[in-house]
């Protein structure tokens, strides 16, 4: 009997040696004469366990991790190549049944349901695990019914802005037919602390293809582009392999599944410009121009790519669509809280013991995520600050750990959930330095079109240098506050407009790092 062994192909696993482990396992199997098939799956998202090697017995998968090449011999000796019951396999790296691991059982995986389980580039595997059921239903109903379903699900843009996806789609749907419309996927995942887009594109690329195809049918768009950041070569490979397979099987092309719907899809690479994650800058870049932000209106839905009606959605928004179509809007909307419906693939990162991908319904608190699921800091030192939502997100102190993870609750505390990256810092972090970094990053990445962002970020960095040198602190901090106000309200896009979030939150919650008196004890002890 052929035994299947799973070793992830996810870049995070590869970065810690998965390719070498897979090669060593293959060589050991050959030497032992064992009938073994090594499947390069996506990652399960328990990244502290990578490389996570899984073996399969009667449809149940057992894990070992983190596996190094030097562990392969002992794994073979323990009997992973033999068909005997897994209970007999004793190994210090064994983590038991992967699906029963508490990190997995506590999640609600709608978007990441298949990630880590299937062979990402096998269309058969995708279909065997409920893939393309959403498209099947979409092809059976009217386009406007697809739009309604997405609207009813309450899905909001997962890129960070949280704009209702259904409204975007409806706007493009309502533009006159007979003109070229586009679906553009924003896969320019540049925020530090976020990797959900990368993981799903590498681990389940057909899901994104299916989501975009459904979007195309819904709004009458026959062409789609995935704008992918160039830092993600593994995702590029996976997407292109999946697109080729989907084309061959008639899931993409001039007649999708033999219907009159056409949809062509292409991956386009960015070139290391953070601002291209802003939707209008991204469209400029796709057109072959400098990634300068456009003033809105006109909205991309009316005049987007090449001035044509365009749906531009984040990877995770599009990847939520197949579930919504297959299971119905209500099934999705039943999860979540308030106006944040459904699930969010949260990324736990930075100085954290159990970093990884944790998909759950909106409403879990920040404290649960950091202390409970994330296990606290990897360094073992106390948590000082948590940045949620990437480089433009606020730094939260422990005092705000009771904030539920959802759009409005974070906004009410002067923060944002953004693309749901959570980066944990221990007490060695200097928050004045982090504030300076926020300005510095903005000045490096500013497209230069608007003055508050272009000049403000540079002046902000210079002023922070003075603050950090203890020069005229009170006066310079007043300048910082004033500057943040100008940037927040005067910038054309979120880069300049949101840079004040990390700066002001650092200053508000950690004034002692800026040479201001520490917050009152009652507040600090909370």
């Amino acid at each position: 009997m052929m035994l299947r062994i799973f070793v992830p192909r996810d870049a995070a696993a590869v970065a810690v040696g998965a390719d070498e482990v897979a090669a060593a396992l293959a060589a050991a199997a050959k030497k032992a004469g064992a009938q073994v098939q090594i499947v390069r799956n996506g990652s399960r998202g328990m990244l502290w366990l990578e490389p996570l090697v899984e073996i399969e017995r009667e449809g149940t998968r057992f894990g070992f991790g983190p596996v190094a090449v030097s562990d392969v011999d002992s794994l073979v000796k323990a009997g992973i190549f033999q068909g005997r019951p897994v209970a007999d396999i004793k190994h210090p790296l064994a983590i038991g049944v992967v699906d029963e691991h508490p990190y997995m059982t506590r999640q609600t995986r709608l978007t990441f349901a298949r990630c880590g389980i299937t062979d990402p580039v096998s269309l058969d595997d995708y279909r065997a695990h409920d893939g393309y059921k959403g498209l099947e239903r979409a092809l059976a109903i009217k386009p406007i019914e697809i739009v309604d379903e997405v609207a009813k699900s309450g899905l909001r843009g997962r890129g960070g802005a949280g704009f209702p996806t259904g409204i975007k789609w409806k706007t493009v749907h309502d533009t006159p037919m007979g003109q070229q419309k586009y679906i553009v996927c924003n896969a320019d995942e540049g925020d530090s602390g976020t990797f959900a887009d990368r993981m799903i594109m590498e681990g389940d690329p057909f899901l994104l293809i299916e989501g975009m195809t459904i979007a195309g049918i819904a709004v009458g768009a026959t062409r789609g582009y995935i704008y992918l950041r160039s830092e993600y070569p593994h995702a590029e490979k996976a997407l292109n392999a999946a697109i080729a397979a989907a084309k061959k099987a008639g899931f993409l092309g001039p007649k999708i599944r033999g219907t009159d719907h056409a949809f062509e899809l292409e991956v386009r690479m960015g070139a290391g410009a953070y601002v291209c994650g802003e939707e209008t800058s991204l469209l400029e870049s796709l057109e072959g121009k400098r990634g300068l932000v456009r003033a809105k209106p006109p909205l991309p839905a009316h005049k987007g790519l090449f001035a044509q009606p365009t749906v531009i959605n984040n990877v995770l928004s599009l990847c939520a669509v197949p579930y919504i179509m297959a299971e119905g809007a209500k099934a999705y909307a039943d999860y979540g809280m308030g106006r944040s419906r459904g699930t969010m693939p949260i990324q736990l990162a930075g100085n954290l013991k159990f970093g990884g991908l944790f998909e759950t319904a909106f409403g879990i608190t920040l404290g649960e995520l950091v202390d409970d699921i994330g296990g606290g800091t990897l360094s073992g030192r106390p948590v000082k600050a948590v940045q949620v939502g990437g480089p433009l997100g606020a730094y939260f102190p422990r005092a705000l750990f009771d904030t539920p993870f959802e759009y409005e609750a974070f906004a009410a505390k002067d923060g944002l959930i953004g693309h749901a990256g959570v980066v944990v810092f221990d007490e060695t972090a200097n928050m004045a330095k982090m504030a300076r970094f926020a300005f510095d990053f903005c000045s490096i990445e500013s497209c230069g079109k608007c003055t508050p962002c272009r000049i403000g970020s540079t002046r902000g960095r210079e002023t922070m240098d003075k603050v950090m040198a203890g020069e005229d602190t009170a006066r310079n901090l007043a300048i910082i506050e004033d500057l943040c106000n100008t940037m927040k309200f005067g910038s054309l896009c979120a880069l300049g407009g949101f840079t004040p979030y990390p700066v002001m939150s650092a200053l508000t919650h950690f004034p002692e790092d800026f040479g201001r008196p520490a917050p009152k004890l009652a507040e600090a002890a909370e």
Partner: protein
Amino acid sequence: MSRFEPWSEERTVEIVAAHLHLEGPLMPILHAVQNAYGHVPEEAIPVIARELNLSRAEVHGVVTFYHEFRRELPGKHVLKLCRAEACQSMGCERLVERAEERLGVECGATSADGRVTLEAVYCLGLCATAPSAMLDGRVVGRLDAGRLDQLIKEAQT
């Protein structure tokens, strides 16, 4: 011998022609040109502009806007160290200092022997296995001083 092709106008025209069927072909063309020559040579700009019926200024503007497009040849190996927040939380700045010291260059420059170009990158999406690096196309996570030294040694030989 260089890993890259020598500059050739004819070859550049070919590269452009191979992308003309695309909508908005300039970015894919610049990527292809950089793949061929290791950078976007100054001579390429007027050729691309002519073939696409754009002004030189437009092409120059695009090349200089994106961090990824190089104006000159990199060293034999390119070592990118991530300096974004998640990697900072795990001490990447100390590793950047160490690399700068070992290679005798600042981030963004090439070592005197032309072997290693050291660059900062803002996020490789490996934020739960930080700090991260990329040596040529290869990603490396859970970087520490020992693994960094190994990478540098590998790049120098």
